[in-house]
């Protein structure tokens, strides 16, 4: 067990616990964007930076991925921390001026207008979609392509993915609603399916299994399990704000094509 102090409150936690988890236990909130309970730490948005003090050392680290250390002092909202977080949100706001999540964050931090040229993009490159597709769905249909400023999420060679199972996990974790499931794709595999047998994901138009290896017994489905374990429920319901309209959209779409 490891004892440390977060904002002057002492706490003892298991080795390997992240600073974010330790703070959470104390009821201290640290803003995050690229972090997700069910996924491996990624440390890309840097919104969760905090100051750490250890012996002579004082620096900033990402709370979502940095593990606790004995005797460490963590400061989660010093002026310095807040200043850096503001700048990060300002960067993101200039990248995605129309994205609600980012606008809300900026509002809360009192950022009116970013001082930089706006780029009008949707995706903040948090990697949640890519990771959920890889780590949870186990599909790897989407990934990052290119590098630096050109970095973006895409399917290999920008072609319609033939491995995507249409589970929707990616669009449900996306904090910026940057991913639209293509109804065409859903339609395509429903047509392919063309049978009475439909698992609940298929019924919702969310999965494209032509033949189910589990004989349509969802409780045996590994994907089902993984997604539930990681997200607590089906992705479509797991999003931070439940996207009711989206589900309804699927259902009505489903009805339409089944008629």
């Amino acid at each position, binding site marked *: 067990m490891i004892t440390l102090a977060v904002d002057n409150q002492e706490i003892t936690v298991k080795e390997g616990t992240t600073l974010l988890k330790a703070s959470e236990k104390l009821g201290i909130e640290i803003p995050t964007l690229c972090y997700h309970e069910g996924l491996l730490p990624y440390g890309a948005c*840097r919104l969760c*930076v905090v100051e750490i003090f250890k012996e002579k050392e004082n620096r900033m680290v*990402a709370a979502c991925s940095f593990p606790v250390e004995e005797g460490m002092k963590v400061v989660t909202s010093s002026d310095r921390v807040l200043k850096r977080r503001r700048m990060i949100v300002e960067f993101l706001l200039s990248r995605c001026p129309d994205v609600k999540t980012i606008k809300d964050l900026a509002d809360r931090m009192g950022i009116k207008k970013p001082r*930089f040229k706006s780029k009008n993009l949707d995706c903040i490159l948090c990697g949640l979609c890519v990771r959920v597709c890889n780590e949870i769905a186990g599909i790897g249909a989407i990934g990052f392509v290119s*590098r630096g400023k050109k970095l973006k999420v895409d399917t290999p060679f920008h072609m319609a993915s033939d491995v995507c199972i249409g589970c929707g996990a990616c669009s449900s974790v996306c904090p910026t609603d940057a991913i639209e499931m293509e109804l065409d794709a859903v339609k395509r595999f429903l047509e392919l399916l063309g049978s009475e047998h439909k698992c609940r994901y298929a019924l919702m138009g969310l999965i494209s299994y032509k033949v189910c290896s589990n004989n349509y017994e969802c409780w045996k489905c590994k994907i089902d399990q993984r997604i539930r374990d990681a997200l607590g429920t089906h992705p479509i319901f797991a999003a931070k704000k439940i996207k009711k309209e989206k589900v309804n959209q699927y259902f009505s779409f489903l009805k339409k094509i089944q008629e």
Partner: protein
Amino acid sequence: MRIADESGLKELKNSVLQERDSLRPCITICGGTGCHGYACEKVIAAVENEIERQNLKDKVSMRVTGCHGFCERGPIVVIYPEKVFYQRVAVDDVPEIISQTIINSKIIERLLYTDPNTGVKPVHEDDVPFYNRQKRIIFGNNGKIEPTNISDYIALDGYGALCKALFHMTPDQIIEEVNKSKLRGRGGAGFSTSKKWAITRASKKGMKFIICNCDEGDPGAYMDRSLMEGNPHLVLEGMIIGAYAIGAHEGYIYIRNEYPLAVRNVGIAIKQAEELGLLGKNILNSGFNFTITVHKAAGAFVCGEETALISSIEGKLDGPRPRPPFPAQKGLWGKPTNINNVETLANVPLIIERGADWYSKIGTEKSKGTKIFSLVGKVNNTGLVEVPMGMTLREVVFDIGGGIPKGKNFKAVQTGGPSGGCIPESLIDLPVDFERLTEVGSMMGSGGMIVMDENTCMVDVAKYFLGFLDDESCGKCVPCREGIEKMREILTNICKGEGEEGDIELLEEIALTVKETSLCGLGQTASNPVLTTIKYFRDEYEEHIRNKRCPAGVCLDLISYSIDAEKCNGCGACVRPCPTQAITGEKKKLHSLDQEKCIKCGACFETCKFDSIIIK
């Protein structure tokens, strides 16, 4: 033919030495990448032919070596045993070298190096000022070895340290010796090598790996590459000792595919070492197994970062990931992995062979040994220089580098590669070591050293490096991806004369955010060029922003060319070079320059012998 044991290696060494007559002249020709740029291969062929033609095969030998460091004067030829030093050798010089120097022991004056500062022409390599102030304990053997011939390395006691380590030391003793030597990583961060080894050794999990980082992607830096090309066995020996110390049985050399000579030479070296039983199963019958795989990399700057490098070997392209866990805890395929830089590993055999006490006498209190720098830019002698830690910048730039060309004034020196800082003239007596460079806002980095003269605009310099980093950022984390781009934009505007009050402060704020919050070393150091140029050359920024002037006369949008009516004598020399016919005038009369037509190429400025073209 495997070597059976320690005495087997000694016998092999003795038999190599016996075959060689140390008094017999040997012509060594530099075959490094730098000299290849000067077509050294033709000189090599000419020497071969000439030896053949004059039937001297029994009287002289020749050797094609790796880089000697003084690339600027290539092709370089050194004649042993006296070490007569010839530079800028051409094919036509070869017959004369053989008939004069080899047969009649006569020196050919015109091939000697002339010290631009004193006019002295030293005959022997050791007297050339570029070399005699250096301490070439790592790099020195490059000039004595044919890299593709393991016998050359063995003749110089090569693999002796490995024997000592395997048969006379325990792994813990090796780590302790390296600890006493205070060796620190030469790949950039200067982390204690023994500490890293000890952590990897302490990890109980079965498999472990050792990786040699030869990615070296800094523009202008080529010391790791030159070591790999010129003395690959030195690096291999260091790596095998390291593997034995930490308990790894598999190693990778991560090397850029763009370095074909290094890839080739290290491949040959591995094969030769395996054949002699110095690498592979049951090394020298000691019971220790260790194999090395060469991983050829596609070459992105960020892949030199250790976690990105590991992911690249694993065949993923995930880029850097958060540390901890450090590779020493959880690295390649999740196993404890020790990553060391090429030069770090090259130090190891020396420390084991000569002992930590000897080694730690070189250098400063916390930075021991030597460091190889790639000295480039506005300096007379460019090339690779190896100096003891703690030598001052002045000694490096003026004594070894021979000062600034054309008698211009020194302005700054940038150390540490693209994300290093610029150090101004007021700090020229700074002793170069890890601590001091960091204190002044720069860093050791991989050892790049770019000298700048009075005609350098520091805002332009910051813009240049930020441009490089902007292109090389992997884009994973927000501050580095977005912040560097913003800094680059602001710097570009300032250089265009579109800078505004408050830009400097905004730059500083962004720079600190990028530095303090970025995920990996690239972002964490990317602000150095901006922060140091603002710190030491703030007035230059202000001139650009407030008066729309570039004091160094570099930023095209802020300068204009004109003709000094007092000085122009109407020689007309500038008329021809001007690509847009902007200069007109009658012979022997004052010429005029049409600002509208002028594209600011500077051709007239270079041509005028009377300093009558003015840049404002």
